[in-house]
C-alpha cells in the first residue's frame, strides 16, 4: 500500500482531496471522526450511541446475567477492561435508557511479581487502580498474584452449578425484579463491610511468596509456556475470588481483536478442543462461576477511540509481554501476524472472530460430572482419552522414540525395557533438562518423584502437558495444584484396585 503511494505520489497528491468533509454514515450531518469496520464513518455522538448500544445488546441477547445477580468485573487496567467497567457504570446510571440490573464488583490482579517488577512500581500501580476503582463506587478487590500460592485444591474442582435455568426463567426473573423495583439498588450492609475489609489498606505481599512465584515463573523455559501458565494461575485466582466473595458471574474484557489472536494462538498451542470455551461469550467450565465476555463484539480500535474520546481512564501496567520481540512467544507472534494482516485486509479480525462464534464443544454430559475427566490446570474436558490410532497417540509415540536417544536420560530409569511406561518416558524428560540432571545427579530424577511427575501429566490436557513439559520442574507449581494432583492420583489408583468389584456404570 505504502509503495503504491510512493510511486504515484504526484498523482495522488492532487486526487486525494483532504477528506475531512466526510460525513457520518448514520446521521449524515455531522463530520465523521472515526472509521470503523471497512469504511463506516461515524461522528462523535453516533459512535457513542453505537458503542453503548452494542454493550447492552450483547448482554440482552445472551440472557445470561440475571437481575440482581452479583457480577465480578475483572479489570486489568488496560483499555478493554476499563472500557467494560465504564460501560457497566453507564448501564447502571440513573438516566440509562435501558438499565442494567446486576450488582457489579471489581477485581484487579496484580501480576507485578510474575513480570518481575519492583515493589515500589507495584505499589504505585496498586494505588492508581485503587483511585480508579474508588471513583466508580463499586466494591472492589485488589488481589496480588501471590495469593495463588495460598489457594486450596478445591479451586480445581468443578463445582456443581446451582440449578439449570431454562430460557423462560430469565423473563420471569426480570418481571419479578421489575415488580420489586422499589428496593433497588440493593446495597446490602454485609457487602459494605466486606468492602471495608478489602479496601482498608493495600494488601500485604510476603516477600517469600513473591520469590516462590518468581521461581515458578523462571522455571518455565519458554515465554510461551510462561504466558500460558500465568493465564492459568490468573484464571484460578479470579474464580477463587469470585467464589469467596459470593459472585456468580465473572466478566472478562476480551475484545474481538484479542479473541482472534487467542483463537489462532490456542490452535497453535494445541488447545483446539477447548477453543469454544476459551473464546466464546460464556464459559461454564467452573460450574458455579460462569465466565462472560461482553466486550467480544468490539474491535480494539473502537475501544481505544471510545476511551480516548470520552475520557475513559485506563492505566498502563507493564506485563510479562511488554517490550518483547515479535518472536518471543507463540502468542506474540500470532498477535503481530493478525495485526499486520488486519492492516491490509480490514476484515481479518472479524472473519476469525466469526469463526469462533460458530464453534461448539461436543460436550458429553456424563463426563461433566466426573472430576477426573477435566484438566488439572485449565479445567476443560480432557482431550487425551482417544483411541490408539489417533494423532495424539502418534505424537506420544514419536516423542517417546526421539527421547530414547540422549544417553543421560536413560540413567535415571530404563524405560525402553519396560513396555508399560510410555508416559514415564515422556515425562522423565520433564525434569531431565540436560544440564540440571547432570549437576544434581540422581537427586533430580530420584524414584519417589518420577511417579508423581508421570501422574501429573496424565491429569492434563494435551496443551497443558506441553506447558508443563516446558517447565524445568513441576515442584515449583503452587501447592494446591500438586495436592489436587496427588488426590486425583490416589483416587484413580484406588479405582483401579477395586475396579474388579465395581459394577461399572460406564459400560
Amino acid at each position, binding site marked *: 500500500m*505504502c509503495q503504491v*503511494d*510512493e510511486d504515484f505520489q504526484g498523482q*495522488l*497528491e492532487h486526487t*486525494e482531496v*483532504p*477528506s*475531512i468533509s*466526510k460525513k457520518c454514515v448514520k446521521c449524515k450531518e455531522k*463530520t*465523521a*471522526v*472515526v*472509521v470503523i469496520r471497512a469504511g463506516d*464513518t461515524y461522528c462523535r455522538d453516533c459512535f457513542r450511541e453505537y458503542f453503548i448500544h452494542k454493550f447492552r445488546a450483547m448482554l440482552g441477547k445472551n440472557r445470561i446475567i440475571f437481575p440482581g445477580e452479583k457480577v465480578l468485573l475483572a479489570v486489568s487496567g*488496560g*483499555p478493554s477492561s476499563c472500557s467494560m467497567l465504564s460501560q457497566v457504570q453507564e448501564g447502571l446510571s440513573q438516566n440509562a435508557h435501558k438499565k442494567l440490573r446486576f450488582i457489579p464488583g471489581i477485581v484487579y490482579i496484580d501480576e507485578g511479581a510474575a513480570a518481575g517488577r519492583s515493589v515500589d512500581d507495584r505499589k504505585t500501580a496498586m494505588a492508581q487502580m485503587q483511585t480508579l476503582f474508588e471513583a466508580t463506587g463499586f466494591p472492589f478487590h485488589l488481589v496480588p498474584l501471590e495469593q495463588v500460592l495460598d489457594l486450596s485444591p478445591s479451586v480445581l474442582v468443578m463445582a456443581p452449578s446451582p440449578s439449570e435455568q431454562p430460557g423462560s426463567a430469565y423473563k420471569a426473573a426480570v418481571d419479578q425484579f421489575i415488580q420489586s423495583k422499589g428496593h433497588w439498588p440493593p446495597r446490602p450492609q454485609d457487602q459494605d463491610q466486606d468492602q471495608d475489609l478489602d479496601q482498608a489498606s493495600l494488601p500485604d505481599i510476603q516477600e517469600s511468596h513473591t520469590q516462590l512465584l518468581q521461581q515458578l515463573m523462571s522455571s518455565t523455559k519458554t515465554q510461551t509456556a510462561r504466558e500460558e501458565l500465568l493465564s492459568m494461575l490468573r484464571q484460578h485466582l479470579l474464580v477463587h475470588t469470585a467464589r469467596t466473595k459470593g459472585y456468580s458471574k465473572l466478566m472478562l474484557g476480551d475484545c474481538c*481483536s484479542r479473541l482472534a489472536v487467542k483463537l489462532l494462538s490456542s490452535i497453535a498451542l494445541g488447545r483446539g478442543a477447548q477453543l469454544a470455551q476459551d473464546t466464546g461469550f460464556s464459559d461454564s467450565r467452573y460450574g458455579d462461576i460462569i465466565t462472560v465476555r461482553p466486550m467480544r463484539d468490539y474491535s*480494539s*480500535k473502537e*475501544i*481505544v*477511540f471510545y476511551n*480516548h*474520546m470520552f475520557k475513559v481512564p*485506563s492505566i*498502563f501496567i*507493564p*506485563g510479562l*509481554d*511488554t*517490550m*518483547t520481540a*515479535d518472536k*518471543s512467544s507463540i*502468542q*506474540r507472534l500470532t*498477535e*503481530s501476524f493478525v*495485526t*499486520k494482516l*488486519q*492492516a491490509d485486509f480490514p476484515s481479518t479480525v472479524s472473519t476469525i472472530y466469526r469463526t469462533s462464534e460458530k464453534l461448539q464443544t461436543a460436550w458429553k454430559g456424563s463426563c461433566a460430572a466426573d472430576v477426573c475427566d477435566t484438566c488439572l490446570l485449565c479445567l476443560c474436558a480432557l482431550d487425551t482419552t482417544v483411541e490408539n490410532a489417533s494423532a495424539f497417540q502418534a505424537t506420544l509415540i514419536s516423542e517417546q522414540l526421539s527421547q530414547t536417544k540422549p544417553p543421560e536420560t536413560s540413567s535415571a530409569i530404563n524405560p525402553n525395557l519396560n513396555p508399560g511406561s510410555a508416559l514415564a518416558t515422556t515425562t522423565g524428560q520433564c525434569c531431565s533438562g540436560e544440564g540440571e540432571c547432570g549437576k544434581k545427579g540422581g537427586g533430580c530424577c530420584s524414584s519417589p518423584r518420577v511417579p508423581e511427575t508421570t501422574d501429573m501429566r496424565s491429569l492434563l490436557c494435551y496443551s497443558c502437558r506441553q506447558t508443563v513439559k516446558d517447565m524445568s520442574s513441576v515442584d515449583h507449581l503452587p501447592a494446591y495444584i500438586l495436592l489436587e494432583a496427588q488426590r486425583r492420583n490416589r483416587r484413580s489408583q484406588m479405582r483401579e484396585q477395586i475396579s474388579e468389584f465395581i459394577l461399572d456404570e460406564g459400560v
Partner: protein
Amino acid sequence: MYAKICLIFLFLSRGGAELLFKGVKEHHVTLPTQSEPWDVKQLLVWIQRNLLKERPELFVQGDSVRPGILVLINDADWELMGELDYQLQDQDNIVFISTLHGG
C-alpha cells in the same frame, strides 16, 4: 517558506509505546522550518530521528506506523485525514495509541 509548526504528541498504549519515548507521554515540539509543507510521513521520520532512540521497530514499520498503533489527528481518525499525506498545521494535536500487547 513554511513557518514553524507547533505540535503536541501524546503516546498512549497498552503495550508501552510511551516506554519507547522514555516514559514521557506528552511531547510539545516545534518542527524546523522547511521549504515544503510537513506531512505525517515526514513527521514520522523526524520522530524516529529526534525522539525515538531505541527499538524503532516497535513504533514504525516501513514508512508508516506499525500496524496496531492508531493515529488520531486533532481527535479524529487519521484515515479520515489522508493518513500519511495529511499536511500538518500549526497547533495540531497528534495522538498515537497502541493496541498491541507486547509493543
